[in-house]
């Protein structure tokens, strides 16, 4: 029997998800032994035409990480969707938009101008910018164009499963691969992680008193954080209560609050709105004048509450940006 074909691909991402695959360490050998890798640009040299030559549905499963923000990524997502029986959105960027999704607070023109003109480290007197098509020595090379909007994978193509995390842990990855290889699959559309919030697994949970009222939000880089106590009890914004469990509580383990990379539980449509609701409701004070100084401790609500999930949020992006 031929071994099932597997593809890995990356779109707008940092490469960390690829690292996770490598982090499977010797376990990867077992996987490699069972599958036939047909695409993995970070490790092996495949070309588009290799992929195009495959029949539709010939790939058993594709793990795609990264958000979709360019025409090339979009067309690859569509191509891989067509060639694959299962498409897995791998990691926070493909799942929720991830860190690249924070670009949805700005317009494409703002970003290009910043990156190619105004950023302090840029020297570009000609204000040259990448062009979709250029004419050089009689050749017409094409470059991918950047989209106006950063998207999650499932905003571009149909996705079968989601592996959350920035990056997903090796354990979740192994479990997912095992489930796929065994054919023991959950319903389509599932997020392959527990559906409970992180506190459930957090060793600091027991240290949270029942009556936490916020009078001040303290920012983690300005205070020495207690290594045992619940961050919220210390007045530090922690997204654990609004974030799926399954990461192994790594950030709190490293004495940093959760920033929400696993995304919300299935019962929540908008992770940022929910943590805002919870933190806000528990602020002390009864008048706008009393409440406001406390809330000023969260200077960037979008960046804080939607660090990984802005493209997947209900509003998706800053709504008043004209397209240029």
């Amino acid at each position, binding site marked *: 029997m031929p071994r099932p074909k597997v593809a890995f691909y990356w779109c707008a991402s940092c490469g960390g998800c690829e690292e996770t695959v490598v982090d499977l360490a010797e376990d990867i050998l077992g996987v490699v032994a069972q599958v036939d890798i047909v695409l993995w640009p970070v490790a092996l040299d495949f070309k588009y035409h290799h992929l195009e030559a495959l029949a*539709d549905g010939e790939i058993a499963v594709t793990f795609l990480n990264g958000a979709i923000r360019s025409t090339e990524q979009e067309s690859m997502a*569509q191509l891989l969707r*067509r060639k694959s029986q299962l498409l897995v959105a791998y990691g926070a960027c493909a799942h929720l938009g991830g860190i690249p999704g924070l670009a949805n607070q700005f317009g494409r023109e703002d970003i290009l101008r910043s990156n190619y003109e105004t950023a302090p480290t840029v020297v570009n007197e000609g204000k040259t910018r990448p062009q979709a098509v250029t004419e050089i020595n009689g050749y017409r090379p094409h470059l991918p164009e950047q989209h106006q909007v950063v998207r999650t994978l499932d*905003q571009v193509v149909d996705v079968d499963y989601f592996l959350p995390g920035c990056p997903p842990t090796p354990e979740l990855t192994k479990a997912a691969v095992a489930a796929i290889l065994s054919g023991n699959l959950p319903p389509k559309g599932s997020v*392959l992680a527990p559906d409970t919030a992180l506190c459930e697994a957090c060793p600091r949970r027991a240290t949270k008193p029942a009556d936490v009222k916020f009078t001040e939000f303290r920012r983690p880089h300005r205070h020495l954080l207690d290594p045992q106590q619940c961050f919220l009890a210390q007045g530090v914004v922690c997204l654990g209560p609004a974030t799926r469990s399954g990461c192994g509580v790594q950030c709190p383990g490293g004495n940093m609050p959760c920033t929400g990379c696993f995304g919300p539980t299935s019962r929540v449509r908008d992770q940022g*709105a929910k943590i805002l609701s919870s933190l806000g409701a528990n602020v002390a004070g*009864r008048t*706008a004048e009393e409440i406001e100084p406390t809330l000023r401790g969260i200077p960037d609500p979008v960046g804080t509450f939607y660090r990984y999930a802005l493209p*997947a949020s209900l509003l998706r992006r800053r709504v008043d940006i004209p397209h240029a």
Partner: protein
Amino acid sequence: MNAPAQPPAAPPWTPRIVAFFCNWCTYTAADLAGVSRLKYAPNVRVIRLMCSGRVDPQFILEALRRGADGVLIGGCHPGDCHYVEGNYKMLRRFGLLQRMLADLGIPPARVRLEWISAAEGERVKAVINDMTRQLQALGPLDLPGKFADWDAEIADLAATLQTESAKEPEATHTWEPPKVLVQPQ
């Protein structure tokens, strides 16, 4: 009514307001406005909740995303909440939400929190009329339309690539949470 010979011109745009009114004060005040036959703009659609404390910010975002031009939240006056202090909890969320909405390009006038007691039918009328006027001046928010505009770039590309099987994204498509939880073993 006679069917017009020509299809009528599209009626002028008027804002759509979704209102979340607490059962005890503002919803009752809206009933009082009705009983008193006060007249106000038909642009508001009221959802009754037991308390303004029940207004989940997700409801507000959902309303905007579905096409509301403004969202009005009505609760009891401070100190008067039927549930002691649910309205304070809404107030506490509200400042943060307004700031976040501003960062996402939604001006504060589109989302309004008002304390209206059961006796203030007049105030229901005044607030709705005032908000309608303000939104009229701001113009449509039209997020469904914006979503469709944004996603046109996807559809265009699909056309040029002639990938006939490419999935047409839905105009208002966003990430929907999956329904089932999976515990990895």
